[in-house]
Each structure stands twice: as C-alpha cells, then as structure tokens.
C-alpha cells in the first residue's frame, strides 16, 4: 500500500515550501508597520452613548440613535465587575447593543467603573441593593416605566438574577447570557482552583484589599494557556496582511488587557457564598438580610449559554430555568465560546436577531 508524502512525514517542508514560507514571512514583516498603524487607530465602542446618570464610580450609558423607538420597555445591560462593559458594543458588526438599538429598543448599559482601594468594603448588598437598584430606578423614572428588561452577562447575569429575585416588581423580562448560578459541578477548572481547600479568599482580600486585576487576568488566561498564549499569536501571524482581522484582533486585545480590580468584599462574598458554598441556587443566599429566592422570578426568562464556554460552562447556567417561578422561560445553548457569544460572527448573525425577536414580543 502506498503512503502519501504528508502521511509519511507531514512535518517535512520541501525547499519550494521553505522558499514560499520565507517569502510569506518577508511579506508579513513588510506589513508590520501597517499592523502597528491599525493597532494605534483601532477604537472600541460601536454605538454612540451618553452618560445619563452617575453614582459614586458607576455610570449609566444610554445609547443614542436615530432609529425610532418601537418598544415601550427599556433594556438595561448589566456586565460583570471583571473587565469593562464595552465588550457588548465592541465594534460595528460585533455589537450586541447595536442589535437592540437598531430594533428600536431604548437601551442602557451599566458601567460599574473602576474600584480603588477605598472601595474594598463594597459588598454584594452595595452592588445589588444600592447601585443596581438605583440604576433600575433611574431607567424606570426616565422612561416612565414600572418594569424594565434586564440583560446580564457573566457575573453581571448572576447579579441580575439576584436583583430580579429581590425586586420582581421592577423586572419585566430577564435575559441571562453565560451567567453562572449553580456551582455544584466541581469538575470544571475554575471550580477546582477556587475550591476552599485551595483558595483562601478571606486571606487574599485581607492582604490585597481588592481582587487584583492581574490575578484575575492571569487566572483567565491560564484556563486555556495554549489557546491564549500560543495559538492566538500563530493566528495573528498568519493574518498579518488581513486588515479587517487586525482591527478585530486589536479591538479584542484592547478589551482583554483592559482589566480592572473587583471590590474586595464583593469578590470575597461572590467567591465564598456563590462559587464555594453554592448558596444562590439552594435559595440560601442572603443580601441585605433578605433571602434571594429565585422562585420569586416570575417574568419571562431567556437563558443563553455557550456550548464551548470554558469560563462558565452551560452546566453552571442551565439549572436556572428550573429554579425560577416563571412559566415563560427558554434556554438557548449556542455553539460559541464565552466571549464568542457576544462578539462572534455567527452569534451576531444568528443568535442576536432571534433574541431581539424574543424580547420584542414581550416589550410592549
């Protein structure tokens, strides 16, 4: 039986190939100044917005558009405390926000701001009962609506779920996007690393005050080291001549490296009570003296998960739909990664238009 050359020695390169690779390398190197220019000029944030409300360090952004408002219920987007919220409006064609804005939703985004050492004592009650509640009240007051729609992403989704359970009278629709609520699965990597036997969160907060941005970024990168530290740069090299790729790449890198610390007490409570003790899904989590009972969520719920999410695997989010009291609840497990759910081409082409349809049916 004959064996083809690549099967025999697939790693071998012929002189022709070597010459071709060398020429390709030279072409790419010639493109480096162009890549640097793209890196300098690339901007994040696709949709114009105004800060309409400020409280301590947080800002409430309202997206400005010429599109006629077609839905009476406004939408509030709540992002995690880790990283910045513009990932949901990264670039034209990669913006979750623009889908809603272009479909006539009055859309708001909550920018939590960057905590400093003085914010180390801000806790879950501050973030949910004080900040998030004030923002929701502000949106309700501005739009003269009793109830608003809330879209929470990642940790922001968990916080939105907690808020909706504590204030069901203010939430008309709840959309969760890769939001962890059930940490009973201890096999995924982050659960192993944050296990109480390994990770002393009390000590960390006592010593550092806030959760350091570098620690968080390093941990997230280490979850998929080959992909984030090696493969990514191979892909970058291969696409060095593709300007569109470079723009997307640098926009993404800008966001990935724009890390912020998390307020110490909030981080400690989230890790300890949610990730380690898994109190939320059991209905034992207390915020401001009140039990967070997910069964009190009776509004329509759309739970979006990503099949290849290494940060928040679907198992952490899927139990939410069974825990709520809503009868109108839907889950979508979309083939994407954690970030791909927001910025992926396929998600922007297929998922978000259907999410807009779902929300439009429930927003008047």
């Amino acid at each position: 039986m004959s064996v083809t050359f690549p099967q025999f020695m697939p790693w071998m390169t012929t002189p022709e190939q070597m010459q071709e690779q060398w020429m390709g390398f030279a072409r790419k190197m010639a493109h480096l100044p162009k890549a640097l220019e793209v890196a300098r000029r690339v901007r994040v944030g696709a949709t114009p917005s105004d800060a309409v409300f400020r409280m301590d360090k947080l800002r409430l952004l309202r997206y400005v558009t010429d599109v006629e408002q077609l839905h009476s219920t406004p939408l509030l987007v709540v992002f995690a405390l880790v990283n910045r919220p513009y990932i949901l409006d990264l670039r034209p064609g990669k913006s979750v926000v623009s889908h809603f804005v272009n479909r006539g939703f009055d859309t708001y985004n909550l920018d939590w701001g960057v905590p400093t050492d003085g914010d180390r004592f801000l806790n879950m009650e501050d973030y949910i009962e004080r900040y998030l509640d004030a923002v929701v009240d502000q949106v309700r007051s501005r739009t003269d609506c009793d109830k608003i729609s809330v879209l929470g992403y990642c940790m922001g989704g968990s916080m939105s779920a907690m808020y909706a359970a504590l204030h069901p009278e203010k939430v008309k629709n709840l959309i969760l996007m890769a939001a962890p609520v059930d940490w009973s699965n201890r096999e995924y990597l982050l659960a192993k690393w944050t296990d109480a036997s390994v990770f002393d969160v009390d000590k960390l907060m006592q010593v550092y005050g806030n959760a350091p941005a570098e620690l968080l970024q390093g941990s997230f990168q280490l979850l998929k080291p080959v992909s984030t530290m090696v493969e990514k740069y191979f892909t970058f090299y291969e696409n060095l001549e593709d300007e569109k790729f470079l723009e997307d790449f640098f926009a993404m890198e800008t966001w990935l490296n724009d890390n912020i610390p998390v307020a110490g007490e909030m981080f400690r409570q989230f890790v300890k009570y949610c990730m380690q003790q898994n109190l939320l899904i059991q209905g034992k989590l207390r915020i401001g003296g009140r039990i967070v009972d997910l069964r009190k969520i009776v509004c329509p719920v759309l739970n979006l998960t990503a099949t290849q999410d290494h940060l928040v695997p679907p198992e952490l989010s899927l139990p939410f739909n069974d825990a709520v009291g809503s009868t109108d609840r839907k889950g979508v497990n979309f083939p994407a990664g954690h970030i791909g759910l927001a910025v992926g081409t396929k998600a922007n082409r297929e998922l978000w238009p259907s999410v807009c349809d779902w929300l439009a049916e429930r927003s008047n």
Partner: protein
Amino acid sequence: MDSFSSKDANATSDPFSRFWVDLMSKMSGTPFAPTASQMQDDAMKRTRQAFFDAWAHHCDEFLRSDAFLDVLKKSMDSALAFKQELNEFMTKALHDQQLPARSDTDSILVVLRSMEDRVLERIDRLSSRVDALESSASGASPDAASGKRRPKGVAQ
C-alpha cells in the same frame, strides 16, 4: 490530490528542489505528493493543530491535577504571606514617620461605612414616617403616597 511523481518533481525549475523532491519521493516509497500549497494548507496546519490540541489537553489535565493544585495553594500562600509582611513593614515604616498607612484609611472607611449605614437607616425610618403622615393626610395607602422611589445618585 496531486501525485508525488517524478514527472512533477522534474517539473520544478530549481535543481535542488528537483533533487530533494525526488529523494523524498524515493524515501517515502510513494508515487504521490501534494502541491506545496496543499501541503501548507492541509497537512502542516492539521499537524500543527493536532499538536496544539494534544498540548492543550495535556495542559488541562495538568492544571486540574492534585500536583498543580498543591503547587497553586503553596505559591498563593507564600505570596500572600510575603505581601502581608510587606504591608506590615510599610505600616510600621509609615507610622514611625508619623504618616498614615493603608490600615488607617481602612479604619476610617469602616467608620464612615457604619456611619453611612446608621444615617441611611435613620433616613429610611423618617421617610416611612413621612409617607405614613402623608397617607393619613390624603387618605391614601402609604405605598401609593410614597410613589416611585427617588433615584439616588446624579441624573444628567
């Protein structure tokens, strides 16, 4: 797929390439070969991807192993112990110079936060009493009299 034939090998203009391709053809004992571009696009990329996948799989196994978790715990513990000693040293150094340290600002923050809690609690109680008075004056229920809560913060 194009064949790795001597005809193809001879078709290359570069004598060294011709020699090399011919040699490899004989070494592999096969009359088939891909073109350079196919080689580049398929086998090389597949090989590389397979290597990365295997590497990633290996890393994942290692990162969840007891050995790694043990190292993680020990390195975290020693990093925290070092940082704590550094904090204590800095606090002592600053105090020796009659300067405030982070622990002092933390203490002030704790006092401010408890003061804020007490003031807010007091305002809530006063607010409830005002609502009750308003409702008794207008004959409406306290909830209706209070209306929507006034948002905190600064509207712009």
